[in-house]
C-alpha cells in the first residue's frame, strides 16, 4: 500500500496535526504516517534575510524520508525562501518523492488579521495537497477551483478547493496509476 509520511519539524498544534493526518488520508485514500523530525534549524537560517533556506531544507527532508514510504512532506512553521524569490509557501520535487510546506505565511496574524484556526487548517491542507500533487507529477492547472492552481499569496489559496479537478485526476490515473476518491 502506498503510504504518505508527514514529518513535522518544530512544534505543531496536536489538534491541527491529528486532523490533517486523518483528512489527508481520507481525501487521498492512502495511509498517512507521522514522524517528528529533529534538525538544528539554525543551520538553515539566513541572518540577512531572516528566513530559512527551503532548497537545503528539502534535501534534508528527502534524505530522512522512510525508505518504504511513497511520498514524504516536511512540515515547518518558519519563513521559507529560495535564493531568487522573496518567500515561498512550500515546494516539491516534480515527479519526485519529497516536498515541504510551511504554516508561517498562512496565518492570518502574519497579515495583521484575527487568527482563524479553521481557515489556517484549510490553507495548510491545500498547500500540502498541492505540493503532493507536484510529487505525483502534476503541474499547475488552469481550472479553478482546482488545488493545483498556482498560489502566490494566501488569498489565492482561499479561492481554491482542497481537491484535484477532473482533468488532474485523469492525468494521475493515466500517468501514475493513482486513483483518487472523488472529493
Amino acid at each position, binding site marked *: 500500500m502506498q503510504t504518505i509520511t508527514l514529518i513535522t519539524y518544530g512544534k505543531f498544534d496536536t489538534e491541527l496535526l491529528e486532523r490533517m493526518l486523518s483528512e489527508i488520508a481520507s481525501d487521498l485514500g492512502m495511509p498517512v504516517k507521522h514522524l517528528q523530525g529533529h534538525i538544528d534549524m539554525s543551520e538553515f537560517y539566513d541572518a540577512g534575510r531572516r528566513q530559512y533556506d527551503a532548497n537545503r531544507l528539502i534535501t534534508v527532508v528527502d534524505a530522512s524520508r522512510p525508505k518504504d514510504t511513497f511520498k514524504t512532506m516536511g512540515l515547518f512553521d518558519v519563513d521559507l525562501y529560495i535564493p531568487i524569490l522573496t518567500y515561498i509557501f512550500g515546494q516539491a520535487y516534480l515527479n519526485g518523492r519529497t516536498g515541504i510546506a510551511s504554516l508561517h505565511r498562512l496565518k492570518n496574524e502574519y497579515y495583521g488579521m484575527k487568527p482563524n484556526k479553521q481557515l489556517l487548517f484549510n490553507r495548510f491542507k491545500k498547500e500540502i495537497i498541492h505540493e503532493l500533487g507536484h510529487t505525483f507529477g502534476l503541474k499547475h492547472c488552469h481550472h*479553478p477551483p482546482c488545488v493545483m492552481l*498556482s498560489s502566490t*499569496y494566501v488569498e489565492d489559496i482561499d479561492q481554491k478547493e482542497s481537491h484535484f479537478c477532473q482533468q488532474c485526476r485523469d492525468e494521475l490515473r493515466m500517468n501514475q496509476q493513482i486513483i483518487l476518491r*472523488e472529493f
Partner: protein
Amino acid sequence: MSKQISLLIVDDEESVRDSLYNWFIEDGYFVECAEDAKTALSMLENKHFDIILTDIKMPGMDGMEMHRRIKALNTKSIVIIMTAFATVDTAVQALKDGAFDYVTKPFDPDELTHLIKNAAKQITLEAENVALKEKFVDLENVDDIIGNSEPMKQVLREVMSVAQSNSSVVITGESGTGKELIARAIHSNSQRKFFPLVSVHCGALSESLLESELFGHEKGAFTGAMYNRKGRFEMADGGTIFLDEIATISPKMQIELLRVLETKKFVRVGGNKEISSDFRVICATNRDLKSMVEKGTFREDLYYRLNVVNINIPPLRERPDDIPLLVDFFIKKYCTAMNKANISIEENALKKLKEFDFPGNVRELENMIERAIVIGDGKKIRSSDLPLAKDAFDSSYESLEDLEKVHILQILNKYGWNISQSAKALKVDRVTLYNKIKKYDLKQPE
C-alpha cells in the same frame, strides 16, 4: 493551453537557474537553461524560445550585449531582464532598447508569475489570432456543467461566444442552478485564463468588510489592520472577478463599484495611492435586477455597465430531460466519495424526479441523491428514498441529518470550537467529529 510556451533562463549562478527552472516547469512551461550569454546565443541559433529571462550582470558578455545580439538575430523572442537593485538604471536602458520588461532580484513570487504570464499572453494572443478565424474552439473546464437539453446547449453556446470578448456579464438564474460554474467556464475559455479568477460572495459580507475585501486596505486603516493587504480587484489583475449575489450590495458600494468599473482604478481603504487593475467582471444574481432598477433599489447606470451580456440559466424544471444525466453524474460522484459501488435508480423514482418542480434546482437534486445513497439499501434508489412528498407537509428537510448538523454546530459554538471538549460533550471521538464537520461543511464563525 493550446501551445506550450518555451523559456530560456540565462544566469551564471546555478542556484538561480535551478530555482527558476523548477518554478517554471511546475507552471507548465518548456524550460532550458544556459550559464552564460555565449551558450545562450548558440542555443538560439538552432532553436526558438518564446521568452528569454536573462541576468544583466554575467562574466564574459553581459545581458545588455546579449540582448542586442538577440535583436540582431531577428527572432520574435521576448526578452526579460533580471537585475539587482544596483543595476536598475541599466535595466531601464534595456527597456528603451526594446526589452519587454525587467524584474529586480529577489522577486516576489507574484511579480514573477505575473510578468511571465503577461509575456505568455502576448505570445498566445498572436498565435490564436492566426488560428481563431477558422477554428471551432473546444470548451475547457465544463465537465461539471451537465445537460444535453436545448436550453443548456444554448447556455454553453453563449459561454463560448462571450468568453472570447472582454464584456461584462451578468449570469441570472434561480438559486442552485450553478451560476458559479458558468462563471468559471467563461473565465477558463477566455484569454484571461492564465490569470486568476477571483470570487467574492457579496451577500455574505457587511458593507465595510466588503469594501476592504474588494479594495484592500492600508496598514492602520482601522483597528487590527497592521499590514497592507491586497483587495480582490487587485488580485484579479489580468484575470476575472466574479461578484456573486450582486443585488445585495448597498447603495454606497454600488457607487464605488461603478467608479471602479469606469476607471479601472481605485485606492485601498485608508490609502491614497491610486492602483489600477485590468480585470473583467462577471456578476451573478437570482434577483430581477431590471425590476430593482425600476424600483430604484439598484442603480441604473451600474446595471447597464454590468449587464452588457446576460446569460440566463434555466431552472431545472424547464429541462427535465437533463435529470437522468444529472442523476447519473451525482450517483457516480457520491458512490465514489463514499467508496461504494455505483448503484442504479428505479424507473419509477426517476419518473417522479422528472415530474418534481425542484425549487432548489440542481443543488436540491444533488442533495437528494446524496441523501438517498446514504439512507438507501445500497443497490437501487427507490422513490421512498427521495423526499418528494411535498404535498403532505413541508418538512422534508427536518431529517435526522439536519438535526444532527444543527446540534453539532451548536455544541461547537458553545465550546468555542474546541474539538476535544465538543467531542466529549457529544460523546463521540475526535475523528468522528472532524468527519462530521467536514461532511456538513461546518465553519467556525469569524
